């Protein structure tokens, strides 16, 4: 009796809760998202992040979630405009001295921090001192340590002098977030609460950070570049991408990065989704490659590397893994930029040529069709980290190589083990990885023969004296057309030596709810997000905050 009674109580509570739930259900109306709307301010934009930011001081934080949020809060001296040219951010102009070793930045007038205090060159100097201070726990100091002398002749001028002319310099000043001296001067930058409650100068300031759940930014009315139209940016932390997609289709988030299958197959099949969500495609910022361990035979033989390059059908990889949403490349740069050597083209798919080269290298097919040399088969392992696209790429490559008689096995490894147990120790055959590139063409850290130490980035073991010289020259040459020539030559050597096989430069794919207007389509070289301060949500299309789920 007792238990049954209690149970029926539970049932009653359950039923009444369900009633309450359905009572607060919204009625759905048909909204036309395609009308013309005037840009007005107000509304909110909700996006999803897979990870939580750890620290909003970008120089200390290492994760992408932190830099994404911090990028909305802080400014640098310079930024990139939609065509990837340098544009003013805090600095309205800059001049390079004749000896090419000094840059003078002139700040805009009347700059303010979000708390109303003036932003001057003293803040810039303070930030530079901070990042070059050996006690600051930042991994990004090396570029700024090349500055021999930094000074502030007046509150609107910041001058830096380099030991030697350093071409990537301007690029480095687009990514240093300037921090407020008046708030941080007595703080221990490594432990300060500022990392969770920052004061910046850019379009948004931190409104609320609910740990583990969401970060809310609101418009900064003192913003140095003008007030953004959308008043609130809410980033929800949703670790699983399938959950993110469900939230997008239920109208609970507005922006999401999607994968090729969602872009190419799921959306076209759903008219209802197409009515309220728009898709965008832009050039990505990196490329995916197959890298050889150049210190391990047979990969030290250029014929083997080139042969494998001919044996892989890059178009098949792009079609199969990216559903065509990517481009083949033959220079290690973002497609469309001037650094790409227009005279180079990727190795075509020619298995006969591959076999010919392998034969030259001493590999002959045995009775089972496996390539052998000195009684040993041509066999190796591809390792990659936990990334669906890289995994699929490895599978496609495995199949093609099997066709010409190469035995390939695949291993997917969790990141920390991947880096420490295999990459750093040089204990690997072949990797499928990607580089996410900065916009400056300098690739010294990756390809120079001096960068092969443990923890450094020439982990493939590449060494070419001509390339070394070019890389050193390229760092010092500030003249753009001369630099172009240097890096075109560099790309040519890289393609011939084939230490890596360029697989593809994938597109960045986004799905944005149609209530968000002001997005440039087709996307400019800098991508659709570069002008997110110009986006707006017209009043009739805004979501009703309290009853939104």
């Amino acid at each position, binding site marked *: 009796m007792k238990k049954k009674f209690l149970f029926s109580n539970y049932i009653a509570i359950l039923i009444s809760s369900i009633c309450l739930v359905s009572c607060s259900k*919204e009625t759905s109306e048909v909204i036309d998202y395609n009308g013309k709307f005037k840009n007005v301010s107000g509304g909110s934009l909700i996006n999803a992040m897979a990870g939580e930011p750890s620290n909003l001081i970008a120089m200390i934080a290492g994760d992408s979630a932190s830099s994404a949020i911090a990028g909305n809060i802080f400014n640098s001296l310079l930024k990139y405009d939609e065509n990837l040219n340098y544009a003013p951010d805090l600095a309205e102009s800059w001049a390079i001295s004749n000896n090419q070793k000094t840059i003078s930045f002139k700040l805009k007038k009347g700059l303010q921090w979000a708390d109303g205090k003036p932003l001057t060159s003293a803040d810039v100097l303070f930030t530079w001192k901070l990042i070059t201070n050996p006690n600051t*726990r930042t991994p990004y100091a090396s570029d700024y340590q090349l500055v021999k002398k930094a000074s502030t002749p007046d509150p609107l001028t910041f001058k830096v002098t380099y030991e030697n002319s350093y071409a990537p310099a301007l690029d480095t000043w687009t990514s240093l977030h300037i921090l407020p001296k008046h708030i941080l001067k007595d703080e221990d930058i490594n432990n300060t609460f500022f990392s969770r409650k920052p004061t910046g100068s850019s379009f948004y300031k931190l409104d609320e950070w609910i740990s583990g759940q969401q970060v809310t930014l609101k418009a900064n009315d003192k913003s140095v570049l003008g007030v953004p139209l959308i008043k609130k940016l809410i980033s929800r932390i949703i670790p699983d991408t399938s*959950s993110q997609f469900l939230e997008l289709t239920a109208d609970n988030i507005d922006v999401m990065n999607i994968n090729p299958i969602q872009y190419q197959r799921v959306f076209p099949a759903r008219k209802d989704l197409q009515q309220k969500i728009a898709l965008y495609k832009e050039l990505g910022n990196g490329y995916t490659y197959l890298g050889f361990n150049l210190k391990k035979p047979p990969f030290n033989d250029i014929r083997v590397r080139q042969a494998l390059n001919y044996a892989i059908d890059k178009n098949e990889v792009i079609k199969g893994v990216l559903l065509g949403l990517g481009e083949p490349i033959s220079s290690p740069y973002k497609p469309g930029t001037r650094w790409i050597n227009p005279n180079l083209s990727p190795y075509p798919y020619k298995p006969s040529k591959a076999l010919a080269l392998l034969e030259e290298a001493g590999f002959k097919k045995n009775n089972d069709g496996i390539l052998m040399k000195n009684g040993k088969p041509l066999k190796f392992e591809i390792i990659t980290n936990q990334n669906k696209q890289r995994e699929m790429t490895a599978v496609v490559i495995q199949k093609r190589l099997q066709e010409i008689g190469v035995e390939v096995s695949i291993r997917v490894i969790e990141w920390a083990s991947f880096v*420490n147990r295999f990459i750093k120790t040089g204990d690997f055959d072949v990797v499928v990885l990607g580089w996410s590139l900065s916009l400056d063409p300098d690739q010294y850290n990756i390809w120079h023969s001096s960068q092969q130490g443990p923890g450094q980035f020439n982990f493939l073991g590449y060494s070419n004296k001509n390339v070394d010289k070019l890389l050193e020259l390229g760092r010092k040459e500030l003249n753009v057309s001369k630099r172009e020539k240097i890096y075109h030559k560099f790309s040519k050597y890289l393609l011939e030596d084939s230490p890596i096989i360029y697989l593809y430069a994938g597109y960045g794919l986004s799905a944005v709810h149609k209530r968000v207007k002001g997005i440039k389509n087709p996307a400019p070289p800098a991508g659709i997000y570069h002008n997110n301060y110009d986006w707006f949500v017209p009043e009739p299309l805004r979501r009703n*905050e309290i009853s939104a789920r």
Partner: protein
Amino acid sequence: MLIGISLVSFFIMHLAPGDVTSSEASFNPKASEESRQKLRELYNLDKPVIIQYGLWVKRIAQLDFGNSFASHQKPVLWERTDKSGNVTKGLIQESLPITLMINLLGICIIFSISIFLGTLSAVRQNTWVDRSITLFVFIGFAIPGFWLALLLMYWTGVSNQWLPISGLHSLGYQNLSTFHQFIDLLKHLVLPVSISSLSGLAGISLYVRNGMLDILHQDFITTARSKGLKESKIVFIHALKNAVLPLITIVGLSIPGLIGGSVIAESIFAIPGMGKLFYDSVLMRDFPVIMGILTIGSFLTLIGNLLADIGYAWADPRVRKGLVK
């Protein structure tokens, strides 16, 4: 025993290649190795494992669980207030209540439903009622959780907008009255709690069923029946009381599980609980957090066992009377 667990866990963790400096950023060509080396020295990661363990024990003895490596000095256990009065909450302090809430709700639901189903099954043994209940709970155990979660999220959240899809609170949560905040929270919890309780139902229902079957065949029940007592009274008062006793042991044994969130459910439902915390800290080699969670876990195990023993002794009148004498 605490020492044993902590020692074992510490060594297992350090067997793993890599440490907190191996994050995604470590492969950024702009990041230098020297800075990573400095970080390693700061966290004592370059010292021999024994020494690191010793340092950790010394701190734990003062109840200082340390700060997380990966989330930039967030305290592992409890909040810390700096000189300007800014409070940084501890990692476990933030995730534990959420996980506890879900687990406690889950336990309540599991036990109440299981007792009901198990009893029903036992009373109607071998009828279709019994068989279908058994089938139902078995299916509940056999369904892969994340599959069901995604299906239900789609059905209840996208096709029909009955329930929220993920997260713990709706937007504009602060603007709601306390009562509506409570209802909002419940709505968000329906799916995660149901899915994580589903697998527990099978075990406990069967246990209750078998326990009840045992008791219902015992002599004192036959005596009660022959005395003419009502069947429902027999079942629900006499039999059930005895069958429920071993459940107390089970509750006690489930206490350590209370702090373990399911990392899969928490990922899918975007709930920042202990499961996700542990998983992330393992992947990021965040040793202070890992050790903190395992220490608390083993501590709770000891307490759980103790409570189970006490609870059983108290509930069983034979033991109680014996003690009093």
